């Protein structure tokens, strides 16, 4: 009778220890991913160092599903640069090219007009009501490099959240059922 109780106790304790180890290693993976993301934010100086292209307004250069690497430096914004900006009131950032720049003599502040390469007209229709120009504080970063197709994972997970839950569920199952 006693050794049954001992065996049951030892099995229980092993399982708890294993579970805790797995929980800690999962936590480590998530934390290191977060550290890498924050470090990227620091290095590139931009709030979101990687964005996914969501529309076809910059085709054929950037297609839907490509990802862009952003960098924001103190250099002034000049015509031809591809910038990512947020319009007040819209939460989705837009990736377009700067076509007009007016920089003030005294303050050095800049007013900028953008346009998507594949669009017919400029972006004034996309700006907030009555807004004719973008200022520097609207701009999140300049696109400096890109990778094709990789962003489709994010698009699929955003548009069909079921897939996100399935993926996280499967990952969770894998972690729990793996022996080491």
């Amino acid at each position, binding site marked *: 009778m006693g050794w049954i109780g001992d065996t049951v106790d030892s099995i229980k304790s092993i399982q708890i220890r294993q579970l805790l180890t797995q929980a800690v290693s999962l936590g480590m993976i998530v934390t290191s991913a977060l550290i890498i993301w924050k470090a990227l934010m620091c290095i590139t100086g931009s709030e979101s160092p990687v964005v996914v292209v969501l529309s076809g307004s910059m085709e054929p250069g950037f297609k839907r599903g490509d990802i862009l690497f952003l960098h924001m430096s103190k250099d002034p914004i000049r*015509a031809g640069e591809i910038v990512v900006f947020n319009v007040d009131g819209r939460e989705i950032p837009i990736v377009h090219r700067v076509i007009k720049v*007016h920089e*003030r003599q005294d303050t*050095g502040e800049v007013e900028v007009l953008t346009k998507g390469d594949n669009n017919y007209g400029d972006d004034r229709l996309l700006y907030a009501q009555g807004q004719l120009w973008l200022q520097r504080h609207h701009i999140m970063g300049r696109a*400096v490099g890109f990778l094709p197709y990789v962003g489709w994972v994010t698009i699929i997970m955003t548009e069909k959240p079921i897939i996100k839950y399935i993926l996280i569920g499967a990952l969770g199952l894998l972690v729990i059922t793996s022996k080491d």
Partner: protein
Amino acid sequence: MHSFGYRANALLTFAVTILALICAMASLSDNFNSPSPSSQIQILNINWFQKQPHGNDEISLTMNITADLQSLFTWNTKQVFVFVAAEYETLKNSLNQVSLWDAIIPTKEHAKFWVQTANKYRFVDQGSNLRGKEFNLTLHWHVMPKTGKMFVDKLVMSGFRLPEEYR
């Protein structure tokens, strides 16, 4: 240790790492290319030059643009975006850049071209400072790769001047 799951995981990780490495190398190979592009822009005609109701000057002109950008293309180039901007200075603004025309060059064969066109985008000033203004016409190009880092450069052509009077 040798289950299907572990093997699939190891294979996938390896494949993704190698893919990332190949993309990086493709992008690095672009640095070995030393381009020598050339271009000429001529202003054929000032079509009209007016002050708009809001008080801003606007001008319409026809240009002759020739360029040879074939040396910019590498095997990792998807397209070259080229545009012509007028750059000038005014009392209020230390720099004004107004894009007048742009085009997408998809292949090397299209990169040597001659175009005669009116300005695609309106040349509007912030104010009415354009009379007799000297300005530069700059040809900018933006090499967009199939994967990796993008390259930007420009060619400045100076010596253009707008007419003294509205017409």
